[in-house]
């Protein structure tokens, strides 16, 4: 009798363990009631809309874009389910109205702890293929999307818990099925969630309708004279009208105005390269001469993303231009262009003149022409109903 009872008990334990075990598996039969095979899996290939004059958008082969993937990612992006106390979503620090920043000097996580860095605009993030974050510590959007959830100064949750919540959620299992063809809710993984988030982030592309875009697409009246002066200085094209080089385009280059390269742009006056409060790229690479270098962010929608720099130290674009006009701090790993801002006539560096108040204002006025309200108001990227 005793023997039979313990046998039955052992069997029961075994059954429970097997079930639990199976539930961890990415596919196969698992957990009664969470079969999803009745829901059709017909993902629709998705071409990211982009302005014709923008470069092609890199999409990794292992995460092809689908409408269903983008929709799932969008929902996850705006869903506080990703944070430990369900108060914070990605969008808490990346708001559409701030061009996907939070307009704070540094971001604050769910526990009220301030991080050390400023939230970054996600506009045109699909083009960022030279590392992510201010210091380049993440290689891809898929990899990056895993990090905020478990970051103690951000969402401070754990992925196993998030995945459990997603599995038992009334809607998510179906959305994961439609996006990734999982057979049952136990197929939901953090990797799939990250892939969906990355797909949504890749559609955050400029509308191409800013006044600057109108100008480069051939409307000479899209910029007024002062804005045009600013544009000429920004792109070092001012010689014809005797304007100095502001050198900005060397780092914030070309169409997306995202350099993606890492520079010391002359923010800090330090006694030695070891003395930066935030070592930036050097904190990741361990290379001393990378200390104080940060990834160049996009200047599109820059008028919407104050305050500025990795630590939000400058409240206004006026302060930013004031900084650049100081021609760096002479720290040994500063980029040469930082020390050439406001030089007359391109490379013919004979005498530093600096940018006059009018010239600084003109550059700022030009930066305002990069504002793309069509993008921030695009219904496809807002919080879903």
């Amino acid at each position, binding site marked *: 009798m005793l023997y039979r009872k313990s046998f039955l008990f052992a069997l029961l334990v075994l059954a429970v363990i097997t079930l639990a075990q199976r539930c961890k598996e990415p596919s196969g039969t698992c957990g009664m009631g969470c079969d999803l095979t009745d829901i059709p899996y017909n993902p629709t290939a998705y071409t990211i809309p982009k302005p014709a004059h923008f470069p092609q958008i890199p999409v990794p082969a292992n995460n092809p874009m689908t409408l269903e993937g983008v929709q799932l990612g969008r929902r996850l992006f705006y869903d506080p389910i990703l944070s430990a106390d369900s108060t914070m979503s990605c969008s808490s620090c990346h708001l559409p109205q701030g061009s996907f920043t939070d307009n704070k000097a540094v971001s604050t996580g769910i526990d009220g702890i301030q991080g050390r860095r400023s939230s970054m605009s996600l506009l045109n993030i699909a083009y960022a293929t030279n590392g992510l974050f201010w210091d380049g510590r993440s290689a891809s959007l898929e990899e990056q999307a895993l990090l905020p959830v478990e970051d103690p100064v951000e969402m401070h949750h754990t992925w196993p818990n998030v995945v459990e919540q997603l599995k038992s959620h009334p809607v998510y299992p179906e959305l994961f099925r439609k996006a990734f063809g999982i057979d049952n809710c136990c197929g939901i993984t953090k990797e799939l969630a990250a892939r969906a988030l990355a797909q949504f982030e890749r559609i955050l592309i400029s509308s191409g309708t800013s006044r600057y875009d109108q100008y480069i697409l051939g409307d000479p009246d899209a910029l007024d004279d002062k804005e045009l002066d600013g544009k000429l200085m920004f792109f070092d094209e001012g010689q014809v009208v005797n304007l100095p080089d502001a050198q900005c385009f060397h780092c914030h280059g070309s169409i997306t105005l995202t350099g993606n390269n890492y520079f010391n742009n002359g923010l800090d006056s330090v006694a030695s390269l070891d003395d930066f409060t935030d070592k930036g790229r050097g904190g990741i690479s361990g290379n001393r001469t990378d200390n104080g270098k940060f990834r160049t962010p996009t200047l599109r929608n820059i008028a919407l993303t104050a305050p500025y720099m990795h630590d939000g130290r400058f409240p206004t674009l006026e302060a930013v231009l004031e900084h650049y006009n100081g021609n760096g701090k002479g720290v040994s790993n500063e980029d040469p262009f930082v020390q*050439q801002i406001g030089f007359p006539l*391109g490379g*013919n560096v004979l005498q530093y003149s600096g940018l006059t108040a009018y010239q600084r204002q003109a550059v700022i006025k030009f930066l305002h022409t990069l504002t793309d309200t069509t993008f921030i108001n695009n219904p496809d990227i807002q919080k879903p109903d």
Partner: protein
Amino acid sequence: MKFLPTILFALLFVFISSCDKDEPQTEKNFTLTFKSTYGGLALEKYKNYPYDDRDIQVNKFNTFLSDLILVRQDGSEQRLSDIEWVDFTPDLAPDNKAVDVKFQYTVPAGNYTALKIGYGVRPDLNAKKPADFAPEHPLYRENEYWSGWQSYIFTKVQGLYDLDGAGDPESTLTYHCGSDAVYRTSTMNATIPVTDKSGALTVEFDVKKLFYYNGGLLDLDDPLNRNTSHNASNIDLGIKVMDNFANATTVK
């Protein structure tokens, strides 16, 4: 048991198709390696090198190369590539040592006697812009394009020069050279045996030799020789640098 043959067949299929995928890679039998030096020494960012009686640093060095072509004894040509971008000092490198940049090509076996190189972006390609290319293409790079002058930046050399003579380089050097007017070509003779399995050539650029002019080093005390960063500014300096590229090249 009935399924066993099917499973075995399926496994075999998987095996074969995975072999297929590897094939094109192992087929590539020719490796072209680019190295950079300064005065014969391995190049390293933020390191002081002698320049006449002063010191110099080279902290960035990259270049486009067009029409890489192997030449046979009889003068016939084997094209390796229309265009490549060679970045010796990538941002994400683990340390300051300039990296060696390797490309692999599939080439018929034979004895080749020369390598042709175009320094910069050849004119028909330079007429295009980054948005014309797929993300994998060397010319997709927006940071290497001058929208203001509709040209790729053929080569970038940046560094510091000890202008004040105090011992540490402090004065900026920026050589961003581009435009059809500065595109240059050369033919480098070498003995280049290539078999079905392997063949290799190393091309070395000595940055110091980019600064030679009229039998001596460019006078960096002259501000006109220190900076050119767009093709409308100091094109003479851009021409000098691009003229020197062939002399700065050795093949092994």
